[in-house]
């Protein structure tokens, strides 16, 4: 499999469209949370390269590693976007040239770690446009605000995403085979990356866990979910239903001494309102 100039650019553009700050696909809804998911990027890259099946297979494998990624306050422990585009594309190449899916995942993981540089660099350069936007607002200059919020930061961001993607994929594709050759599946580095891939989702899970627990004892809830899935093999929707039942119970049973009816009423209001 060869990646042509046009294909490499297309993948770069997809990568840009899927970056966290890109507004064009209903913001992060269609971008970051949709096409930057490795499962979806695998599908799209597959379309571009003409092998959807392999694309999805690699996408699924990489997706698992990043299943619980969360970016509180714009902090990015792993750059999902480069993993999803540079990483998955390289992974597809490797698989087409005889590599295993596991090795593809390893490469995507490594790329994800390096990619955080692009994100953080953007966060840094954007402060310039921010300063300009502040000035524009002060003068009621709508055009200035538009330029410094919608146009300039995006041009820079597009460069940060399209150029490296193109360079790595188009120029780097000849090395994909070499990488496979250099690091055979049972090489030290591959084994370490595979082990890392298995542990990585724990970071996202732990970030979320920290966010949803106030007191230490609250992790009993996490343990409950873990046990139901690990020991009973429950699927996620069933777990969500059970969880929703318990959540509703919590809402009902913590109604305070505040005159019962009133409290009930408030809850009802809220339920109807929200």
């Amino acid at each position, binding site marked *: 499999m060869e990646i042509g100039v046009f294909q490499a650019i297309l993948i770069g553009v997809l990568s840009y469209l899927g970056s966290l*700050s890109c*507004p064009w696909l*209903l*913001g992060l809804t*269609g971008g970051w*949370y949709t096409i930057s*998911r490795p499962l*979806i990027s695998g*599908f799209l890259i597959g379309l571009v390269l003409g092998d959807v099946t*392999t694309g*999805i297979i690699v996408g*699924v494998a990489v*997706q698992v590693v990043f*299943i619980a990624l969360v970016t*509180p*306050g714009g*902090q990015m*422990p792993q750059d999902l976007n480069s993993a999803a585009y540079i990483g998955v594309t390289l992974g597809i190449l490797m698989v087409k040239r005889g590599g295993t899916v596991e090795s593809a995942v390893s490469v995507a993981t490594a790329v994800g*770690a390096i990619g955080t540089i692009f994100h953080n660099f953007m966060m*840094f350069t*954007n*402060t310039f446009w921010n300063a300009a936007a502040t000035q524009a*607002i002060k003068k009621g200059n709508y055009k200035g605000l*538009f330029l*410094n*919020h*919608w146009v300039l*930061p995006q041009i820079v961001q597009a460069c940060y995403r399209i150029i490296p993607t193109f360079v790595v994929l188009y120029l780097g594709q000849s090395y994909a085979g070499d990488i496979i050759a250099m690091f055979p599946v049972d090489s*030290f580095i591959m*084994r*370490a990356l595979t*082990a890392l891939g*298995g*542990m990585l*989702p*724990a*970071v996202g*899970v*732990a*970030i*979320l*866990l*920290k966010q*949803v*627990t106030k007191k230490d004892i*609250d992790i009993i809830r*996490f343990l409950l*979910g*873990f046990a139901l899935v690990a020991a009973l093999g429950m699927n*996620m*929707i069933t*777990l*969500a239903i059970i969880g*929703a039942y318990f*959540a509703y119970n*919590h*809402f009902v049973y913590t109604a305070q001494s505040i005159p019962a009816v009133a409290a009930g009423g*408030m*809850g009802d209001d*809220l339920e109807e309102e929200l």
Partner: protein
Amino acid sequence: MKKISKKTLSKVWFRWMCGNLSSMSFQWLASFGFSDSMVPAIKELYGDNKDEQIAALQRHAAFYNTEPQLGCIINGVVCGLEEERANGADIDDEVINGIKIGLMGPLAGIGDAMVPGMLVPLLLSIAIGLSNGGNVLGPIFYIITYMASVTIGTYYLFFKGYQLGTKSIDLIVGEAAQRIREAFNLLGAIVVGGVGASYVAVNTALQISTGNEEAPVIINNVLNGIFPKLLSLVVVLFCWWLMSKKKVSALKVMGILVVIAIVGVSIGFF
């Protein structure tokens, strides 16, 4: 009586949804996303008064950050407040900013727990199942269900917020609201447990050779016999402990995992 037209409100919603983080930096995050999204409403309410327009723009350019999708409800609320204010109600900058700051925190927490913490992994876990063997059903399922639910949901929340206006303060900060937040946290914790059990995969290659060459004790099986996926659980709790007790940043935790992976492979643990 000034009233923001439905069309203008829809514009505000759309402008926020698209541009919320367009010029994000650690210092400002969604600040300009917010003020920019208010432009259509500001023009409609203060169309005749440039000074008021500028004041409004500045009012909404204060530091702002929340989970942009669930947080949509705040944009609605603020439109409602601005409308009241434009009609002469006694709502000054302090109040509006207070409400924004009061709501953005809780909604960032709940939002991150609900969207990337629950909705995304839930839909992905189904989609992964459907993708078996490279089937396109998986990605298509995810794209449609995620986009549809979030688009409809945020649109609804935005208009709900707008209707509530000042009433929202009680409703989002009051006692019942706190219980609702707690309930969502509870749900989040349970689902995150399931995500952990489904996708964290830590196994050890350790074996203890017994007299019998053929049947060494496979430690991984022993551990899973004690509790399924015990090692995965330990790693999650370890990460959690580092972050919440030792205040280690997520990035450093990843560094530690890299070290563990390398050391683990070296000593034959993995």
